[in-house]
């Protein structure tokens, strides 16, 4: 492929990417979930699963504990198979930031990357195997001058449930009369 063909292709791709911005020229916010590695967990034991999210550049979303009551917190809700219990979801503390629209006010926000830690416990009776856990991250994004309606990001990750390894064998106590 010669360089002119390449240039034309790049131009066409850029042109089709334009509609990703809204009709008013403002880019729509995006929050994405990095693919979570498969977490192996022993049935009956709680294990932490870390989920890594990314907030699009120039945007922020409220933390789980926003600075004001009227702001919509970021929350994760998970639908789990019946034999899996979701325990505590740990949200990171928000970054205290001021924005051009409220220079005297500090808001508690997530921007760039942030991680949530989800405690997952498969019941002791659960069959070993791979299980999918789905849910939704609800967030509300703003840039420096405008806010976008709350959105829900589908969240999906897999866990592998295994049996507890057998307890280590204990050495039999040696008799003091063993050496005769």
């Amino acid at each position, binding site marked *: *492929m010669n360089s002119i063909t390449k240039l*034309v292709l790049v131009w*066409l*791709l850029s042109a089709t990417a334009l509609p990703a911005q809204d*009709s008013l020229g403002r880019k729509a916010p995006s929050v994405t979930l990095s693919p979570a590695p498969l977490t192996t967990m022993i049935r009956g034991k709680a294990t932490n699963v870390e989920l890594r999210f990314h907030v699009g550049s120039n945007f922020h979303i409220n933390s789980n504990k926003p600075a004001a009551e009227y702001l919509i917190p970021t929350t994760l809700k998970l639908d789990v198979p019946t034999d899996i219990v979701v325990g505590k979801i740990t949200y990171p503390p928000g970054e205290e930031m001021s924005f051009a629209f409220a220079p005297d006010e500090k808001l508690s926000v997530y921007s760039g990357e942030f991680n949530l830690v989800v405690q997952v416990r498969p019941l002791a009776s659960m069959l070993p195997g791979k299980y999918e856990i789905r849910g939704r991250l609800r967030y509300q994004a703003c*840039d420096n*001058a405008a806010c*976008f*309606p709350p959105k829900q990001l589908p969240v999906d990750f897999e866990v592998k449930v295994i049996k507890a390894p057998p307890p280590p064998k204990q050495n039999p106590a040696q008799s003091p009369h063993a050496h005769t």
Partner: protein
Amino acid sequence: MKRDPFVIIGVALVVALMLLFGFKIAHRHPQAASLLIQNSAAPDFTLQALDGKTVHLSDFRGKPVVLNFWATWCGPCKIEMPWFVDFQKQYGPAGVQFLGVAMDDASTKDIAEFAASMKVNYPILIGKESVGDAYGGVQFLPETFYIDGNGKIVDKAFGLKGRGEIEDDIKKILAQSAVAQTQK
């Protein structure tokens, strides 16, 4: 096999056009682009105010109207509301009417409490998606439309603007309305 660059470009062009048309068709708010034209008629609407009264935009025909779409969860909206309160006091006697349209999932009670906490002195209406769609989709907040006494959109502001810019737009709709009055 050598590939003909014209064929590649042709295929890419077709794909690009299909994508562009797909985005256009999928776009939920077809009126957005047309609203970018100034002096178009502001779409009339019927909405309920916090006090339960039914309000039409056309009720205010003859008055310059500042139509502000906002929500309780919108930080920038909260910044400009006190300015609107001041401007309603300042320019209300000259005929300017502010209208706030809450594009919120919050209850009417919560919206009313929020408006009271902001000491809002102009009608707050409970928004509907259809009204948002008529004004180009209101894809983010705040969005403010400056409408003259003839019901024409004189200017629009998407996102938070400075207090001075807002006042300039108010003066613009006042002037436009005065011109319209003298022409009658």
